[in-house]
């Protein structure tokens, strides 16, 4: 019997089989941000365990609330800075160099096929787009990860989603993943890895694959994962060119991680996206998904474009394509947050920032900000937000607010009309 990509990664990193179901794995990268890490650092200090297993394998960023909004967030940043300095963690990204973790770390080339990655953040599953096993964990797991370089997981069972069909005009990877979550439901993939494969995925760029994997956790999945291929190698090439003679050699090497044809899956779901239309969430659960057409005309107060789901340059280009030469509707407000400094710089050079500002958007620095209602765009009670983010939970972007998740195209179209709008009609 062959193996899935996740099983191959587990085999290669097994430190100890601690029960029939549980495996302790060696970690290649431990990612850190200022919301879940400072409390881990404080606890390790208190317990006399303030050490790191390998400073080169720890990557840290201040991204959730940055620049600090108050004394408490300033203290979280301070604890991170002092810890990074104390342990000589070179890959620490502070104000001016910081961006949304799941957009920034891939951009720096930190995630490679076959890696094991953890972070105290549920959207860590994003990094599976590179053919890595990447999982969100809590603070205790983070503490052990930082201190000992290991983490425990249950043996990976995989749901394979085979996607075929060419996406229609202005139908995005976001629409694909929303439709998949609708089908799986919010706990349909609990304790499962979601493997995205098939011809549609093969033609997707890394940004699109990251959008898919990012939301695996919204169906309960431990990790989203894509097979590493030429697209992966091309994205990573600036970082791996010293390791391989040619790009072909890298592509060939990545093959060793790919799932075998006779691998065993917990479930295989085949979908054809040729007839998929733009999708949007309603209600407070990410599996409450409808075609945009059925929600069209719903009034919004705010439009938010950004986050680890859809704040990359490709997303900004998509939104700008609709916004060019137009204004946002009267009476609404719109915010765009390029996910990283590089995204911001590229958007400036490409003239996208000017398009957003001319349209009436507020352009923020890279931050997680309003996505989780911590800063920079929190909703008031009773307000509605059209958002390219990943969670529509009750109170997520502010107590009493309603969030409708959608693609950057749909969010931009909605900004122009002031009501939820099918982007194909603009």
């Amino acid at each position, binding site marked *: 019997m062959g193996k899935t990509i996740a099983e191959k990664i587990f085999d290669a990193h097994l430190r100890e089989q601690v029960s029939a*179901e549980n495996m302790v794995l060696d970690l290649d990268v431990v990612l850190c941000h200022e919301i*879940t890490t400072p*409390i881990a650092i*404080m606890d390790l200090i208190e317990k006399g365990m303030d050490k790191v297993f390998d400073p080169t394998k720890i990557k840290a960023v201040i991204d959730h609330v940055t620049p600090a909004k108050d004394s*408490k967030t300033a203290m979280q940043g301070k604890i991170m800075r002092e810890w990074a300095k104390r342990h000589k963690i070179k890959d620490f990204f502070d104000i001016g160099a910081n961006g949304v973790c799941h957009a920034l770390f891939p951009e720096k080339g930190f995630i490679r096929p076959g890696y094991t990655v953890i972070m105290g953040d549920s959207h860590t599953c994003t990094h599976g787009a590179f053919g890595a096993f990447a999982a969100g964990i809590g603070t205790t797991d983070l503490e052990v990860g930082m201190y*000992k370089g290991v983490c425990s997981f249950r043996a990976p069972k995989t749901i394979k989603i085979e996607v075929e069909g060419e996406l229609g005009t202005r139908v995005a990877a976001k629409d694909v993943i929303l439709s998949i979550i609708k089908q799986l439901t919010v706990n349909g993939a609990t304790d499962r890895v979601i493997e995205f494969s098939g011809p549609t995925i093969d033609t997707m760029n890394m940004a699109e694959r990251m959008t898919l994997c990012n939301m695996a956790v919204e169906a309960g999945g431990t990790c989203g994962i894509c097979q590493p291929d030429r697209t992966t190698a091309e994205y990573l090439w600036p970082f791996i060119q010293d390791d391989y003679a040619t790009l072909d050699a890298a592509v060939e090497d990545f093959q060793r991680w790919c799932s075998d044809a006779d691998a065993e899956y917990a479930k295989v779901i085949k979908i054809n996206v040729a007839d998929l239309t733009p999708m949007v969430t309603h209600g407070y659960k990410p599996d409450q998904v409808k075609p945009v057409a059925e929600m069209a005309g719903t009034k919004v107060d705010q439009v938010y474009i950004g986050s680890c789901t859809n704040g990359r340059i490709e997303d900004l280009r998509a939104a700008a394509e609709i916004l060019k030469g137009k204004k946002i509707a009267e009476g609404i407000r719109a915010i765009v947050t390029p996910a990283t400094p590089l995204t911001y710089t590229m958007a400036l050079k490409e003239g996208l920032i000017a398009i957003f500002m001319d349209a009436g958007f507020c352009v923020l620095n890279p931050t997680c900000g309003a996505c989780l209602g*911590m800063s920079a765009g929190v909703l008031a009670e009773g307000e509605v937000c059209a958002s390219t983010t990943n*969670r529509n939970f009750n109170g997520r972007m502010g107590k009493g607010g309603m969030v409708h998740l959608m693609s950057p195209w749909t969010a931009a179209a909605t900004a122009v009309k002031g009501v939820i709008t099918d982007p194909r009609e603009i």
Partner: protein
Amino acid sequence: MRQFGGPAILLDRNDINTDEIIPAKYLTEITKIALRPHLLEDLLVDGKPFDHESEAMRKAKVVVARENFGCGSSREHAVWAFEVNDKDVIVASSFARIFRQNMFNCGILAVELKPEEIDQLFAMKGDMTISINLEKSLLLAETASEKKEFSFAMNSFDRQLVEAGGWLAYADSKY
């Protein structure tokens, strides 16, 4: 081994998420105890705000809900919010992976019963006390007029974590 159990509070909900358990605005705290007043502050039950400051809530040591408990964010603050309010057993028909792992990593219990067994708990009338017999993996639910016992499955590694007092202590002694 540590004893688990006490007065129970029943929350008739699926998919109670971590934003409802502890809203993100409190994630700027760097002590666990600061989370204490805010547990379940944004929870809706039957579409209405839940009284998270009630006497029953204050007294409870065990929380019972339905499926997919603790979905959403990885924030261990959600587990600590229960812990600092002296609630160290959550009983549900299923848990989100990260929340469940965070519970055992803290050395406290996420107990899974079958959906029909959870239905039976919800059908019991009056104030409920739940006690846990870890050695035998038994859950005993008692009200003034009824008594029901259920066995639950507990993974051997999770049991070791509870015995060790959590994953950090376990990993520190072993790796």
